[in-house]
């Protein structure tokens, strides 16, 4: 709205705003509204009964905890990966950089089948853990592995450009003033990349919440244990229960919207803080 008060540097506000609204409506608002509409067909009591069913609640719990764990895991390893790619020069760096996007290009079902073959108790990796009684595929650990795999690029690709542009003179100044390496990292580098890290976390979390294709192969899909909410939605659809399916989806949508909104607020706060430096 500011464009009206002050002459904007780039003209065409009306045109671009119109296109934006049309785009957002066609691709986000209208489909979302249709979900809400479909769910209202159940009536309030039917809606509440569907979404508070013990099995659905268990599905939510599995979905949210696994997505959270995967996003957290990616924050750590994604940061490490971005750090290695930006700060070190080694043979094969370009190749490694190119590999990061691969999880996006690969059909998720293929990823799920390949990961299951590796991580089942008879697979290459899974058989190393099996003697210790650790089950990866067909357990929640397997879900987290699959979700981590499909969301790897988010944290790496959001943190990487920030690290690249980080002015090294701050770190040098810190070192001259006698700060330890840990102190330099946590007091100088980390605050700079926090907003990007949070964005990456949010994107990975949201993407992991909705992931279906890879998880159904590795999870085992046992009710109350490894059954994710998107699978419950699918099984309701298979039984032609459209209303129930959209009710479950709507709750997930609302919960993720609230979480994403909170992350955005925290992120805005963090970038404001970083800006003061």
């Amino acid at each position, binding site marked *: 709205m500011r464009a009206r008060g002050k002459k904007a540097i780039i003209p065409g506000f009306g045109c671009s705003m119109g296109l934006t609204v049309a785009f957002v409506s066609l691709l986000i608002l209208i489909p979302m509204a249709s979900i809400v509409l479909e769910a209202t067909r159940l009536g309030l009591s039917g809606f509440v009964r569907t979404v508070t069913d013990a*099995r659905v609640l268990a599905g939510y719990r599995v979905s949210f905890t696994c997505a959270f764990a995967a996003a957290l895991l990616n924050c750590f390893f994604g940061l490490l990966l971005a750090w290695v790619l930006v700060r070190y020069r080694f043979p094969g760096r370009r190749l490694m950089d190119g590999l990061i996007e691969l999880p996006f290009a690969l059909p998720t079902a293929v990823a799920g089948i390949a990961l299951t073959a590796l991580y*089942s108790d*008879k697979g290459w990796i899974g058989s190393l853990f099996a003697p210790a009684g650790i089950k990866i595929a*067909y357990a929640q650990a397997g879900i987290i592995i699959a979700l981590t795999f499909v969301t790897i690029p988010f944290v790496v690709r959001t943190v990487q450009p920030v690290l690249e542009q980080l002015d090294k003179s701050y770190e040098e100044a810190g070192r001259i003033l006698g700060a330890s390496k840990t102190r330099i990292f946590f007091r100088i580098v980390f605050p700079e990349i926090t907003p990007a890290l949070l964005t990456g976390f949010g994107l990975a979390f949201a993407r992991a919440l909705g992931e279906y294709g890879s998880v159904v192969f590795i999870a085992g*899909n*046992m009710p109350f244990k490894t059954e994710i909410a998107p699978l419950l939605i699918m099984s309701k*659809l298979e*039984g*032609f229960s459209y209303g129930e399916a959209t009710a479950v989806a709507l709750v997930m949508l609302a919960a993720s919207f609230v979480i994403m909104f909170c992350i955005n607020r925290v992120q805005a706060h963090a970038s404001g803080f970083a800006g003061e430096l």
Partner: protein
Amino acid sequence: MNKIRGLFIMLTAFALSSGFAFAADEITNVSYDPTREFYEQYNAAFKKHWKGKTGKDIGIVQSHGGSGRQARAVIEGNQADVVTLALAYDISAIEKAGLIKPGWQSEFPKNSAPYTSTIVFLVRKGNPKSLKDWGDLAKEGVGIITPNPKTSGGARWNYLAAWAWADKRYNGDEKKIREFVAKLFGNVLVLDTGARGSTNTFVRNKQGDVLLAWENEAHLAIAESRGEFEIATPSLSILAEPPVAIIDAVVDKRGSREVATEYLNYLYSDEAQRLAGKNYYRPSNAGIAKEFASVFDLSLKLVNIDDPLFGGWEKAQRLHFIDGGVFDQLYAKK
């Protein structure tokens, strides 16, 4: 600018080509997962048959996926001329959407099921846990692999076959039947979403002791493995009749009724029946089924879904598989 022009040309070409597809003689068969190999061969045979009969070439677009999902795709506008799905229930859903006229199941012989199948056990070589009948599956320490009846048409047959066996074993005592089926499903290690996923879990990832499988899937798995598996046939199983139907709304619009009808009728020809047998589907033609007596255990007692025990798909679905139905109650929190 060039890019935009390129895009326009591509879009126009796309629009034109899809227009031509409509004008040309082509039909779409929307089917379920495990029929892939069979229809590949059948379509080639039918093209030859149609050419010989009318002198015209016919293109056949073939689509495969989970049966329920395929039915939904057709309801939501996938232009299928014919459907060849796993369950009559899925075709009934298309009928309810108004795309198929009622009475479709008597339009073709044998309940509109040109080939049938049943549920058998695929076990590891030598059957180390000696799993011979349904009762053995409920024993402690047995690991079962089956798809989820809620997401897989095939798995509903698995569940009902177990139910039919228990009904006979416990003389219809529903409490005991439920207990048995709950015990059996308590032994399930992995509930995949589809039949192919379960086969993969059992065969490639080596999970569990027994896979509840379509007879044709079990034979395919054996053909592809090198003696790692064998089939155990239970004392009683279920007669799975994967039905076929014409989508009236589509064929009337496209003017393809004649070829679509012939396409489904030819499934009952001797040639097609033998192809079905070769792909491990039981031919509905009894004479031809006998030619495959070495493949199928033709003496296996089979219960029909229309048996009073189940009372047809509509009733079975409402009782067992809807949200909160008997199957969900088995998994209710203990």
